[in-house]
């Protein structure tokens, strides 16, 4: 896909700004997802997405603290290497009948990507301070991955045909 190299941060400040953007977008996207589920009457999954949103928000705010700020910075428009930001869920993964398991699978996928992103940066040829910061962030994402893995185990695996809707779609306009 549109393979444009994500700009590599050269300073810790740069790095934190980028990390902040990653988390902020991830949080926003979970909110979008939650809203979609609300509109489509899937409250269970909506609540789960809200929860994920809060997790990402927390992470985001934590970075804010690291940046030594109390107010959000202006988020630069980053060109991500991937179609979506490193921790942002793709819209297409959603389904109105999806179950918590599906939502968590999406979260898992995102956390893994986030880990990979930061992990790669931790190994990249960037100033050591940036590497260290990236490593720290990668560690956190690894924790998230673990957390989500545990969480998944607690929810039922959907039965085959979970997406079957006996009713036809409705149309209008």
């Amino acid at each position, binding site marked *: *896909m*549109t393979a444009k190299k994500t700009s590599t941060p050269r300073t810790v400040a740069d790095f934190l700004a980028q990390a902040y953007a990653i988390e902020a977008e991830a949080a926003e996207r979970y909110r979008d997802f939650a809203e*979609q589920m609300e509109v489509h009457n899937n409250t269970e999954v909506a609540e789960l997405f809200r929860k994920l949103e809060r997790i990402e928000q927390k992470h985001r705010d934590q970075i804010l603290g690291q940046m030594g700020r109390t107010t959000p910075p202006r988020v630069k428009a980053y060109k991500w290497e991937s*179609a979506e930001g490193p921790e942002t869920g*793709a*819209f*297409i993964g959603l389904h109105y009948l999806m179950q918590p398991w599906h939502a968590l699978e999406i979260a898992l996928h995102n956390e893994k990507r986030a880990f990979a992103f930061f992990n790669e940066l931790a190994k990249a040829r960037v100033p050591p301070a940036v590497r260290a910061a990236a490593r720290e962030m990668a560690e956190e994402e690894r924790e998230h991955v673990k957390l989500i893995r545990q969480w998944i185990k607690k929810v039922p695996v959907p039965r085959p045909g979970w997406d079957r809707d006996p009713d036809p*779609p409705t*149309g209008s*306009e």
Partner: protein
Amino acid sequence: MNANAAAALAPKDFKSEVKPVWCPGCGDYSVLSSITKAFAKLALRVENVAVVSGIGCSSRIPAYTTCYGFHGVHGRALAVGTGLKLARPDLTVLVAGGDGDGYSIGGNHFMHACRRNVDLTYIVMDNRVYGMTKGQASPTTEPDWESSKLTPEGTGLREFHPLVIALASGANFIARAFSGDPNGTAEIIAEAIRTPGFSFVEILSPCVTFRPEQRLWKDKVHDAPVKPTSDPSQAARRILTDDGFNIGVLYVGHRKTYQPPIGKGAKQAADLEAGFAL
């Protein structure tokens, strides 16, 4: 408020409180997100942008932005957008809609908008189906798609080739994008808006409800193997032989934008009376 002094807006500032009725998974969510990113990238102000559409799932998009919006009737979005831009050249006008809206009932306006080359950007969220009316074939639907009750044996009709028609009709900027790549799509939309004249962006945007197989488009799309050209016949060759999944800006021309001067007349209405006086 001084617009220049105002802080630049983030993508989310272009997203309204109105919640989309789109099916979860629908490609149009990504398109919305790309549009808001493009607006932010171009540092536009919400009040200086108008999003105009027709009727269809995709055409619901204006109200999902915080910009001025016009949700008109089926197939006429380009005409509304043209009138708006000609009367208000200071605005950024984005026209958006579906393949049915734009290529079936609105096909004539599409061709003539390409010819007219007003400084508009036209986005078609192409899902090769009429989503809103529950899954009939659109002009871009494959001839052997048999899932519509209206055409149970398939349409048997050759697909409509939007990029070819745009080129043949004189569009000044032609690109294909994929909703599954919102960042890439945002880039393309921003470039389309930036380019003067009529810019056309065909966005492959899956309908997960009536064309669930389109979830696999992500495996089919690929970057256009070549750079954009400004030579129409080279562009024609490329587009005619492409597989429909080439993503990128395919043609950028240099045609003069159509914009009659407005608001610049030297005379008063009463001056016209001289023509009637004996």
